[in-house]
């Protein structure tokens, strides 16, 4: 069989395909300035501020990675707490075996990718909603297995050793920088992964899986790559949680409430954009702090808002900004008409 020549489309000089927008090119500068200020913050701000920001960064890491999973790969997982737990317990175990907790953090995060490989073989057999509940069941299994180990504190949890030696101020600053490093890696990692071939494949799959398979997109591979990356993100967040709270409690780290937070953050901010979860985390975080005194009511309110947004305002709050053409971290391509 001979190869049929592919007709080249007539060149159209007035149309350009580009990724970046003027806003996105300029957003890199303030992003670096913000990063520099955030890095310098422990020298000027009190510990109250930095520990608040640590919680914020943990939530942001979870939101951004979950959004990559659900918003781009279409994998709605309600079991990411599996990796939060493994990350936290990973730090605990390594610290018990003589590692510095801050050195243990990246090791625990990467370990999450290792155990995510066999887990992905199992849960990828389930589709859509059954995938969601399957991931939840896996998280339950890991939680039930973890609490059987009494050296890890059993059902009540235990303190992370190796953090007592630090001066509280220094420990606060180190924790803050570690959190900043995790969140910046998560943001940069998601951005780069989604701009790569994997991101392109995922966008194709999200839009039409059958068509994407037909043109040769290796769908399972792309999805697995994102699943492993999201496991590392959740693992990093869990490891941070262990260090910032100085102890690990199974009900907390393996709690399904983390999935609720991730989903609410992403739904409020806008699913399927990189900017959405950032905005969503800010809104959720402010709501959480303001409504904290109302106990369970804050989750009722935030949950209702998220449900309403999922049904009637699918693109979330960032969707409003996008209507005005604002795009800070573009991962797609845009066709612009240059003739005008």
């Amino acid at each position, binding site marked *: 069989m001979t190869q049929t020549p592919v007709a080249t489309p007539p060149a159209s000089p007035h149309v350009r395909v580009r990724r970046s927008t003027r806003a996105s090119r300029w957003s890199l500068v303030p992003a670096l300035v913000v990063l520099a200020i955030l890095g310098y913050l422990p020298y000027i701000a009190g510990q109250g501020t930095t520990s608040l920001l640590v919680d914020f960064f943990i939530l942001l890491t979870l939101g951004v990675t979950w959004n990559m999973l659900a918003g781009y790969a279409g994998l709605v997982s309600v079991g990411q707490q599996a990796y939060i737990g493994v990350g936290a317990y990973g730090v605990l175990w390594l610290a018990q075996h003589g590692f510095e907790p801050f050195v243990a953090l990246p090791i625990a995060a990467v370990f999450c990718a290792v155990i995510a490989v066999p887990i992905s073989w199992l849960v990828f057999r389930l589709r859509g909603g059954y995938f*969601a509940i399957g991931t939840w069941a896996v998280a339950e*299994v890991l939680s*039930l297995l973890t609490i059987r180990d009494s050296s890890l504190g059993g059902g009540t949890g235990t303190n992370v050793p190796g953090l007592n030696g630090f001066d509280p101020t220094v420990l606060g600053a180190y924790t803050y920088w570690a959190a900043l490093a995790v969140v910046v890696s998560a943001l940069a990692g998601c951005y780069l992964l989604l701009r790569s071939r994997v991101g392109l494949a995922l966008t194709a799959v999200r839009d039409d899986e059958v068509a994407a398979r037909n043109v040769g997109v290796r769908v399972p591979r792309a999805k697995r790559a994102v699943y492993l990356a999201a496991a590392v993100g959740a693992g990093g967040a869990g490891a941070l949680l262990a260090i910032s709270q100085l102890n690990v409690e199974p009900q907390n780290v393996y709690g399904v409430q983390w999935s*609720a937070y991730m989903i609410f953050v992403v739904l409020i901010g806008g699913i399927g954009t990189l900017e959405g979860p950032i905005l969503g985390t800010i809104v959720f975080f402010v709501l959480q702090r303001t409504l904290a005194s109302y106990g369970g009511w804050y989750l009722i309110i935030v949950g209702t808002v998220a*449900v309403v947004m999922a*049904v009637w305002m699918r693109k979330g709050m960032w969707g409003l900004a996008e209507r005005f053409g604002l795009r800070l971290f573009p991962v797609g391509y845009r066709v612009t008409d240059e003739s005008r």
Partner: protein
Amino acid sequence: MNWANAIVQGLLLGGLFALFACGLSLLFGVIGVINLAHGDLAILGAYVAIAILPSTHTNALWALLFVPPIFAAFGYVSQRTLLQRSLDNGPLTTLLVTFGLSVVLQNALLEGFSADSHSLSIGKLATDAFRVNSTIAISYLRLGILVVAITVLAGVQLFLARTSTGRQIRAVADDGEAAAISGVNTRHITGIAAGIAFLTVALAGMAFGTYAQFAPTSGSNLLLFAFEAVIIGGLGSLWGTLAGGCVLGLAQTIGAQIDPSIGTLSGHLVFLAVLAVRPSGLLPAKAFG
């Protein structure tokens, strides 16, 4: 407890799981909604029973007259409003919406009824049992729940197979657009299917409430058990669901017989093993009916 007793109790427990799984399976099979609020809805059913009954000593069986019809209406209305709307946005949205509802329901129940556990009282029936031999005792309540589960599954099966509405439900499950072209009012029909699913959820929740203590957070585990029964049994097959429920029940009671602290865990592990070895389930079926 001995082994024979563990097996008998496991099969009886399977009836409860199958009852839970019936609604989940139906809602997904016909409407394509994976209801992540399934377990919380069941618990809501038990709490509604508590709220309706005049005192905590009233026999909870009276609530059977009210709660299932309320839930059937609730199911129809939520399908026609929220669920259908979220379905129009794609299957992912229904997941997010039902998960959001689950969190809202759980916290609303916590605010309304506190975190204390409750149970539904059904008088002497809860403790009466007949002894098969010196080691095996079958509780009338547990046997009753298994009978209810089989009746519900058979009833739903018969309804889908024999009635005109049942045929329309199967048609919609098969191909919604084609059914609509042939004159089926798909929105009304999916509403009825959701009503039936919610009715079984209420039954399951009340059965669970008479069986064990429940708290607002009990729903999550129930969702997992229902889901595992569906997957073990095979998607889309109601009798498979009963078999799946029994396998899960057996796994839990036999696990608990080996070590009382691993009952739930061994149920989960059997589920993962089935998923690894036979992902289509034990008795898979192509469609309902």
